């Protein structure tokens, strides 16, 4: 569908590298940046073809976000705290979770869910032949621009929640928050890449990948609500209860100890490494659709 969408002037398919590319570097950054710019251009042009649809999807996402906020609103009609979390702290948490989810959606989601289709149809063969890192290509091929618009609305909600909390975080807190949001996106990306890579073994992987999307539901809830094995699994194995909780706690001065940040960053590193190992193992196993 999308790859046949040829755009005049696009450097996507096997165009010569720009002159400043250094042929000896294994990962020439400037070349990849210009490649990514081309992929962006592609996506913008694709979206412009379906303007109404583009706007409608933004409405859908905004509606579902409003729905989650309504849920919190209704809960706090009947209580004034969940654990130690107050209403506007939870709203900030919902906003942060939405921010991470939408940025993840914008950059990675479509690409990762498409992987099983590329394997099934054999389109991956074509990608392996391109003089580009294959992981780069399957991760960044398409950009979902609506996600950035939704992320902006999440930022507004976070800002409003901070205002209602009467809390003005310092510059260091904002910077730390931004870094942790990026770490959160990386965690989701690496976990989902690992799940998508299972489609090298089974064609049913798409169901698993969509199942993962369910886990975002947990990330937007306050960690204090959970206990037992459920909390252990979703903290240490699939750190859903850390990805948005930790940045928000940093922002609203709620951190129990800086070790929480250390834990999040350590787990993120481990998950990133694991995803690269699994990706390489999976690729080695790949033997085209036709053979």
């Amino acid at each position, binding site marked *: 569908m999308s790859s046949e969408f040829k755009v005049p002037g696009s450097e996507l398919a096997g165009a010569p590298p720009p002159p400043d590319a250094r042929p000896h570097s294994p990962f020439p950054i400037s070349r990849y940046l210009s490649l990514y710019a081309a992929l962006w251009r592609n996506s913008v042009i694709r979206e412009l073809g379906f303007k109404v649809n583009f706007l409608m999807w933004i409405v*859908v996402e905004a509606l579902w976000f409003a729905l989650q906020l309504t849920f919190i609103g209704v809960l706090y009609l009947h209580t004034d705290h969940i654990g130690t979390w107050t209403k506007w702290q939870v709203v900030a948490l919902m906003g942060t979770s939405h921010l991470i989810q939408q940025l993840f959606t914008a950059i990675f989601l479509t690409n990762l869910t498409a992987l099983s289709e590329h394997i099934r149809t054999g389109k991956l063969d074509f990608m392996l032949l391109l003089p580009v890192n294959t992981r780069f290509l399957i991760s960044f091929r398409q950009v979902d621009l609506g996600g950035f618009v939704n992320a902006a609305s999440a930022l507004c909600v976070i800002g409003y929640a901070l205002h209602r909390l009467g809390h003005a975080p310092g510059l260091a807190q904002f910077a730390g928050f931004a870094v942790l949001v990026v770490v959160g996106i990386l965690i989701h990306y690496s976990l989902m890449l690992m799940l998508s890579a299972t489609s090298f073994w089974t064609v049913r992987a798409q169901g698993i990948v969509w199942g993962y999307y369910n886990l975002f539901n947990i990330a937007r809830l306050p960690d204090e609500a959970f206990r037992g094995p459920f909390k252990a699994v979703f903290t240490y194995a699939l750190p859903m209860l850390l990805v948005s909780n930790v940045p928000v706690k940093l922002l609203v001065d709620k951190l129990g100890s800086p070790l929480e940040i250390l834990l999040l960053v350590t787990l993120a590193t481990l998950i990133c490494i694991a995803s690269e190992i699994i990706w390489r193992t999976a690729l080695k196993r790949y033997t085209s659709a036709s053979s």
Partner: protein
Amino acid sequence: MTMSKYWHVLNIGLQNTLVYRLNFLFRATFGLIPLTATIFVWRTIYAGKADGRVGSYELAQMVSYYLVVTIVDALTAVTEDDWQIAADIKDGNISQFLLKPMDYLTYRLCLFGAGRLVYAVVALVPTVAFLWLLRADFVLPPDAATAGWFIVSVGLTALLQFLMSFTLALLAFWVLEVATFIFIAFAFEYLAGGHLFPLDILPPAVAALLDYTPFPYLTYFPVSIWLGRVPAEALAHGVLVQLLWVVAAYALARLVWSRGIRKYSAVGG
């Protein structure tokens, strides 16, 4: 004769959906994760309440509310049917139904029934295991009569769910991309149908307003029957209103279908 041909459709539907049993199992199992999370949050809220009540719900009632929603959902939720109907229209597959002595709505209803049957059977294992884990907080219907009313109401819910999704999918006669409409309607249903929380913990004015829409009859009403929260004298009345909504949805579905077909034929030449 007429019946037997739809039996056939049901049969084919069963065989076709059986292919997806593993997918269904994944979906049913993954679906338990957000459900567990919601229950955790409610438990934490109740732990902080001195009187142990939220609205008129005790903890066991609140937990059971979500568990019964899951049961009703497994039995009645429309999952793939609306997409398939929209695709049938978009790809022109419905042309063959205009030639065959078969009614498309009935045909689709048979497939929906077959799909739900397979899903419910597959989902039975993870769901029952989950209910067993939470058995301390799981409330059963107070008596056999209530259970009977619940079954009737779930049947009507299934019809209402199907007819509303069917009508919505028919929008494909007029617009190219119905997915966004389906998701918007789903969002409203999620909130106003009582998926997210029981509707009677809303401010009374809002809850009263929702009563004039079909949404509460999509989930909230049958669940309330199970929990014994619908007083005996209101049961018959409630089921009657639900039945009226089903009839209205059926009439609307037929109307939209005949309009759509007129539009469709016009396009085809």
